[in-house]
């Protein structure tokens, strides 16, 4: 599973991608997974039926650099806030969390205020997502 390499020494970026809650629309997140793998990143894809607690647990177990959450059915208003709260409470804030999917523009500000590092909705290009992730991880690794 995880290598015996301290995260900051590892070159390759390790990304956790996941759905949250019950939604089963995986078209977007699968496209992102393919895109990131093509860019040389390591992708751990959790799939669906993931709770906020489960996602954070997996993120720590898998020793990832960044978490990407896909929402379609309104989870960004209910479960993502819970995810962000749990991350804070459990001191997991070191791992940036980005969110994507069906998210009205008017909700993006709220998500960012909660600490979501970035929001990507349909139309975001691979270039935008990849450079954002690279920058976020570089910043985090210091």
């Amino acid at each position, binding site marked *: 599973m995880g290598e015996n390499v301290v995260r900051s020494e590892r070159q390759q970026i390790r990304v956790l991608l996941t759905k949250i809650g019950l939604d*089963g629309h995986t*078209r977007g997140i*699968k496209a992102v997974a393919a895109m990131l793998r093509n860019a040389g990143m390591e992708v751990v894809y959790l799939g*669906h039926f993931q709770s906020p607690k489960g996602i954070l647990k997996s993120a720590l177990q898998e020793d990832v650099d960044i978490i990407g959450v896909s929402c379609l059915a*309104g989870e960004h*208003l*209910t479960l993502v806030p819970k995810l962000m709260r749990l991350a804070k409470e459990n001191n997991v804030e070191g791992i940036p969390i980005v969110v994507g999917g069906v998210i*009205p523009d008017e909700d993006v500000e709220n998500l960012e205020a909660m600490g979501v590092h970035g929001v990507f909705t349909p139309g975001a290009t691979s270039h935008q997502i990849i450079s954002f992730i690279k920058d976020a991880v570089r910043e985090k690794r210091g």
Partner: protein
Amino acid sequence: MSTKLDRLTEAYYEKVKRTRTWSGIQLKPIYTPQDLAGVDFERDIADAGQYPFTRGIHPDMYRGKLWTRRQGWGYGLGEDTNKQLKQLIEQGNTGLSIYRDLPSANGIDSDHPMAEGEVGVAGVALCSVQDMEAIMDGIPLDRITTSLLCGSVVAPIMLAQYIALADKTGVPRNKLRGQVSSDPLMGYFCYGKESNPLDLCVKAAVDVIEFCNKEMPQWNATYISACYNLREAAALTASQEIALGFGHAMAYIRGAMARGLGIDDIAPRANFYCNVGIDFFEEIAKFRAMRRMWARLMKEKFGAKDPRSWRFRLATQTSGASLTKQQPLNNIVRAAFQTMASVIGGAQSVYCTPYEETVCLPTDLGQEIALRTQEIIAYETGVAAVADPLGGSYYLETLTNRIEEEASELLDRIEEMGGIVEAIRTGWVESLLDNQLTQYQKEVESGQRTVVGLNTFVRPPREGDFPGGILRIPAHVEEEQIARVKRLKETRDSPKVREAITNLRCTAEKGAGVNLMPAIIDAVKVYATIEEIQGTIREAFGYTWDPMDMRKSPF
């Protein structure tokens, strides 16, 4: 200004870039009688209402009956959805279509831990018959047709809730008309493998077919929603949509035949819920190809003798995935073309997807515009007055032939693998979906496919892009629904529930060939919940109580 004028000149002289259909079929600049050299009118085209029904399944098509305007809705509590359905009827909807929420689709109750944040959100909760009662309050079941959009393994339970309500309100079962999208194999991909194990998927569909054959002859017991949903999930081509949908249908038909039903008991009540994409002519050709393929499949392969078995009954929904979040009012235009293609393509029912689909459930304004779109097409454009208006077109007939060829080849390949369930089990279908989606995504990003507002003619979002607003689920819904479910579990006749569940379990344990519908209906009537019923069935077949393995049976 000079660069703008340069651009204008360039645009003025612009040529058609894309010479393939949306699905990738290479097109000629023009089609001529030569292209139809091998076509025999009687054999391949015939008249509307005549085998092989290429031109439509009824001789008089819309002069006999207009297509059903079947806008779907459903969110919040049962009584909220009841209001939405009534509002749609007032606005011109002529058939009901109800979305259910994700916990219900996955067979868990509103009070399940994984239901958090999901109750009444993507649809309305159908946790128990109490919900169905609230949803359909004041709507006479013998005077309307209803689509219960399910597409997962709990279809029998939702149908049972509807039947229980009919029994309670004195409507004879043989008067019920409509469908529950009992295409659980689609749920395997769209809702989750854990909640839709393949054996339970086929059993659920077959139980519904067998039960309805006896008790509900007017109900459409085979309703293949894979066509719409798999295409949405993976940007499938027209022929892939056909092959996978027909593959699903054949799995259920064979399952029902193994129980002793004849093909003519099954096929007359089979319907398909299909996608309408943005390539206008290709979609029309696709529907014509589907009709001809189905007719031939039923008559020649399955030996159906009843002409009603040969008729491919088509319901459509305009593609949500073809819409954009950017400049969303453009979606009204897209949905209008797609609705028009459905009508010219001879659909029996149409759902015109509202413009805000890319960000939320339909708003009042979105639904209104969608219905008006249907009505303008029905009453102003004149396209409904003549059956199969494009029949005989050198282009359309060629394209129809081509799509049928490709779809037949793919379906043959699925058959060689042992049918769709095998094809799913071996991962072949999943590869197909993944590869197709990756390909499509590449083409959009590289600009090979133009999507207006997304990769061309872009502009930043603007105030007023969504004049109907964004639909929000009120905060109290989940809390209230959970409270109702808890109250229900406390106040219902527990011994009766226990008895019904025990009976269900014993029946299920008798094996996959024993129909569970009667036992499910009995359980539903005493207010057993969807999780209690599905959990009991799951355990009888060796699965965990719930798909996430978080709760245990309370019985």
